[in-house]
């Protein structure tokens, strides 16, 4: 191999002072020229490199493979490579990351490669951190997705269980109810009749709870509560419901205020259930020495059922969550009474009719739960 023509001292000096490493090699990679900067960075003297080593000998093994599979073909075909980061092995064995550009040209019929190199330690560190961060992030996202799917599965399963169990409880309850009825029609002493009465009422309560749970399951599993709207005499339906409730809450005052009248398209049983839930709530959380009022209003295009009670108002920050299942108002004394489904079901009944619910609660005006419905099928 022929050595490169010596450069003039001025040219060599200028190259030596360049702020980057500069090499010139032949087409096979043998070093023809090198500047001082590159030598300082890599620990080699010019005479160690010129005519002695190939550029690729200075790379790590991985770099040497990459040099063969990418660097060299690219220089062959497109005549240049740019911004390639490889590790140069210092004379003492440590690796120095360098970013390099190279171009290929011919001089006097021979192929020459010009290479410029910059040490890239900080950039290398930064890039590694970026790659690590990205890997960590991807792992976290994968984990979060997995946990979310798991949580969703558990929730669906739990809700399905509630539905199945509630459904299965109906049969034994039915047996208890029928048996109680038979016993109380027969020869029972007054004391036994009282006891049978307690059993009957408790069974009814259990039945209502099961009904609530089934409604809840249906609503949560996306189907929404089932309603069968028909034209009904709203005021008559509500009046009957209030009468029954007054008997159930015989120690308390329950009033019915009616405004307007007319036919409304709704599911009467569901409206009775709605009134029942709201009145039960009002009785539980309202002050006992003031009446609970049911207000039924038939308007031109809508009808409204509202239930009012006096007493400690509901905290403002709790109001938005009241219709969410499994949350309860602030009255801890009554915590054992329900599983918090009553209002959720009230909301679902309204929704199933195309209506909506709302609540206001202040010291002066008391607490009012309202459900507004479209009068006719929308």
């Amino acid at each position, binding site marked *: 191999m022929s050595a490169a023509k010596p450069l003039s001292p001025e040219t060599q000096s200028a190259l030596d002072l360049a702020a980057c490493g500069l090499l010139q090699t032949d*087409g*096979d*990679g043998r070093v023809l020229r090198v500047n001082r900067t590159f030598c300082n960075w890599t620990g080699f003297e010019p005479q160690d490199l010129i005519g002695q080593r*190939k550029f690729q000998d200075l790379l*790590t*093994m*991985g*770099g*040497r*493979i*990459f040099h*063969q*599979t*990418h660097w*060299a*073909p*690219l220089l*062959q*075909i*497109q*005549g*240049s*490579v*740019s*911004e*390639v*980061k*490889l*590790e140069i092995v210092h004379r003492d064995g440590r690796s120095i*990351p360098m970013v390099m*550009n*190279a*171009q*290929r*040209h*011919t001089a006097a019929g021979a192929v020459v490669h010009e290479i410029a190199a910059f040490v890239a330690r900080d950039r*290398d560190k930064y*890039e*590694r951190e*970026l*790659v690590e961060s990205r890997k960590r992030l991807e792992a976290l996202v994968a984990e979060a997705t997995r946990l979310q799917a798991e949580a969703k599965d558990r929730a669906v399963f739990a809700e399905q269980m509630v539905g199945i169990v509630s459904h299965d409880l109906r049969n034994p309850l039915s047996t208890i109810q029928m048996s109680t009825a038979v016993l109380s029609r027969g020869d029972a002493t007054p004391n036994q009749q009282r006891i049978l009465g307690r059993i009957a009422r408790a069974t009814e309560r259990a039945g209502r709870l099961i009904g609530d749970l089934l409604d809840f399951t249906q609503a949560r599993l996306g189907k929404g509560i089932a309603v069968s709207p028909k034209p009904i005499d709203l005021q008559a339906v509500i009046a009957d419901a209030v009468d029954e409730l007054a008997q159930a809450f015989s120690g308390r005052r329950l009033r019915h205020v009616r405004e307007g009248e007319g036919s409304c398209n709704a599911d009467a049983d569901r409206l009775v259930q709605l009134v029942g839930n709201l009145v039960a709530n009002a009785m539980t959380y309202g002050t006992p020495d003031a009446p609970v009022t049911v207000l039924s209003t038939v308007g031109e295009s809508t009808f409204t059922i509202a239930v009012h009670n006096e007493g400690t108002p509901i905290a403002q920050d709790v109001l938005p969550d009241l219709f969410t299942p499994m949350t309860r108002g602030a009255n801890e004394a009554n915590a054992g009474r329900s599983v918090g489904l009553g209002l959720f079901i009230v909301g679902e009944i309204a929704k199933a009719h195309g209506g909506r619910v709302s609540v206001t609660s202040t010291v002066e005006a008391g607490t009012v739960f309202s459900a507004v419905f479209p009068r006719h099928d929308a």
Partner: protein
Amino acid sequence: MDIKRRNNVRVGGSGNATLLFVHGFGCDQNMWRLLEPDYSKRYKTILFDLVGSGGSDLAAYDRDKYGTLQGYADDAIEIIDQFANGPVIFVGHSVSSMIGMLANIKAPEKFAAQVMVGPSPCYINEGDYFGGFERKDIEGLLETLESNYLGWASTMAPAIMGAPDQPELGVELTNSFCRTDPEIAKHFARVTFMSDHRADLPRLTAPTLLLQCDEDIIAPIEVGEYMHKVLPNSKLAIIKNVGHCPHLSSPSASTDAIDTFLATEGL
């Protein structure tokens, strides 16, 4: 599945026999640009990109399918079925010579001969076998690929440095030559350099030319000599060439060796 689009297939030339050029790890069918034009005057030629490289459909890269070289071999057979009208001469570079071998073993009637450029059946040393690398060297390669991660997609394009001496290449090669998805590049590298197909060599009965460079760190001479001993029907041609790509750095010597072989086989 549109095979032409999937593998960026280009058909050209005309002649009685068909040459199928298959690039190896790194870059794409452009690697044949110094060889193929000459052969297209005398043969029908088919060029394509392996899935995951060059202008292939990256969306078709299935890590399971391409977790072994057989996935690529099956693609090659599909390409032969669709674009060739007879047995082909498979010209494979580097790892693709093994792809050609696997395809040939699976469907021998579709192949007339094999030309293996810089081939190796196994890159990692084992016992008496010299593949050229220790396992840690291959891990080092994967690390190198990893650390060049942020510079992959448009890196090395002539946009920055231009394409001196061949300015007409500048535009057409911008951002396509050697462009690879970094994850695919890493996976392909692992599949290539961890592969071991020494056991398959005795099953390749088609006439085979081994084009061996005298100074190639990826396919060293010892490997070429080993293959020549084990293959049932092979010829070994040693080319004076520093590096792994004689079809780029020594195109006329490569052409001479291939032509001599094809003449001997009557192809």
